[in-house]
């Protein structure tokens, strides 16, 4: 029943995204209009995949970091991506794909740095990924990259550089069938890795030592989950910039309905995150037409009250 509801919500969200928009398209023309075919449909699908990826990434990281506040962008990836984008503009890297590619590379560099910082010697003799150090490292790397980015923008004379900020918070404007295709080729691998980690993540919730006693290969699990979740986030930031709240709130909303078992939680988060982002993007395009709101603001406007309601319910019991 709840799965049916979620599937229904996803279909409604996608349908609304295709039917509604600031440009008027007659019902009869929905099938033929290039605005629908080339802009709305790829944008809706891209939004769904991005929202779903962020939510799955957030749910996995919350379990890995043992921190309900974990968010896909907490680990420094947005700083890395922003620095990449600024570098691309500053170095005059041309071409239509320069910015997303540079942002992706920037996010990967940040990911690698944070991962290296997070590896510390464990008492077992080998090197272990310590989630607490990972969290601190992520915040530090993100802050540093953000500072470097702002410094470059401040001292540089290229007016274009200021737009790197715009781009970083840009949302889904860059959606096209090509972008969607690239993302759809890329996303399944990290997504499957995370889905395969669903049951071990349940076990990990008890703590690392109990998880080991229950048969989880915790060392490998932590690395796999961190890398897969971060790779998903890096791709999301490359195609749509930093979109907040989806990765933080959707998992918690889903926990309220589906419980803590990641085998249900992760797929539910994917659908829920996808539906939420698509709805938010539709609202962003339509609410103040012809102007457009930043989608991150709409996800916060929709998500935060829901989240607050849920928080009250949890703290009441």
């Amino acid at each position: 029943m709840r799965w049916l509801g979620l599937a229904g919500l996803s279909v409604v969200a996608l349908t609304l995204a295709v039917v509604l928009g600031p440009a008027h398209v007659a019902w009869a023309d929905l099938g033929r209009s290039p605005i629908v075919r080339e802009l709305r449909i790829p944008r809706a699908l891209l939004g769904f995949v991005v929202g779903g990826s962020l939510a799955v990434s957030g749910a996995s990281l919350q379990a890995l970091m043992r921190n309900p506040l974990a968010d896909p962008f907490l680990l420094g990836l947005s700083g890395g991506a922003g620095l990449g984008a600024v570098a691309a503009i500053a170095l005059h890297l041309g071409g239509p794909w320069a910015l997303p590619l540079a942002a992706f590379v920037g996010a990967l560099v940040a990911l690698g740095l944070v991962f290296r910082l997070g590896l510390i010697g464990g008492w077992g003799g080998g090197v272990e990924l310590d989630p607490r150090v990972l969290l601190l490292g992520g915040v530090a790397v993100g802050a540093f990259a953000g500072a470097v980015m702002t410094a470059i923008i401040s001292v540089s004379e290229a007016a274009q550089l200021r737009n790197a900020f715009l781009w970083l918070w840009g949302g889904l404007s860059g959606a096209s069938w090509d972008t969607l295709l690239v993302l759809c080729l890329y996303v399944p691998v990290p997504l499957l890795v995370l889905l395969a980690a669903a049951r071990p993540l349940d076990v990990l919730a008890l703590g690392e030592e109990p998880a080991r006693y229950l048969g989880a290969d915790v060392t490998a699990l932590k690395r796999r989950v961190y890398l897969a979740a971060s790779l998903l986030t890096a791709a999301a930031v490359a195609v749509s910039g930093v979109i907040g709240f989806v990765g933080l709130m959707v998992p918690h909303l889903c926990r309220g309905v589906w419980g803590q078992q990641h085998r249900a939680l992760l797929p539910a988060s994917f659908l829920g995150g996808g539906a939420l982002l698509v709805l938010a993007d539709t609202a962003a395009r339509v609410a103040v037409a012809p102007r457009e709101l930043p989608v991150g603001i709409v996800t916060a406007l929709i998500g935060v009250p829901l989240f607050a309601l849920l928080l009250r319910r949890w703290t009441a019991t």
Partner: protein
Amino acid sequence: MDRDLILALRNVSARYPGAAGDALSGVSLDVRAGDLLAILGPNGSGKTTLVRMALGLLVPATGTAEVLGRPATAWPRRDLARVVGVVSQREENLFPQRVRESVLLGRYPHLSVWGGERPEDHLAVARALERCDVTALADRWIRTLSGGEYQRVRLARALAQEPRVLVLDEPTASLDLRHEMELFELVRDLVDTHGLAAVVVTHHVNLAARFADQVLLLDDGRSAASGPPTDVLTRATVERVFAWPVAIEPFDGRPQMIPLRKPSP
């Protein structure tokens, strides 16, 4: 092999990086099916280190630690979890969970990556709940349980692994008399009626003496004595290891320790 030798540590020693001395040196132990072994010793005597080594989390610096004849560290964790069920000292509950879900985690080593839970898994969970007398609690939230109920649920989770040996690290640390006794009775019963082996790390000398078949008394990383309780728990040994005057009185065929007041100088 004589009767199924499940855990065998031979002459193991361990040292933590940066530590001045060995955490363990030259300790041996055997655990066979149908055995209840109690590990006793003061704080910092190496009890938990020994358990970690037996469970393959620590590589012995010298000696061997084997589970069913194979080095403990060579076991894939999944396979090991089907042989050894552990109730560790501490665990966390990051997200709220119900008792049945929590016990179902014990089936983890039996489940495939993509497959769902099979009827036999639910059966094993039901059996484990039943044996630990927590069936009535199955739909309760973990955080609403009392300390005694929670420890029984954790034991049920270890049983759901269908292991051949149970390892319990200070399982009654914060329990009152009744719950403490109930837990020891439960472990003893599991060993007697289901052919399990059990290792219990505890501070309770008297409970160890009442329930265990074998006792290993650790002192500063070394084995002070090991064998049946009557042989190990002598006045001289206990006073030396715990550095406190005691009297030992037999009760029901087992030695019982009575701590004495410090004689006035």
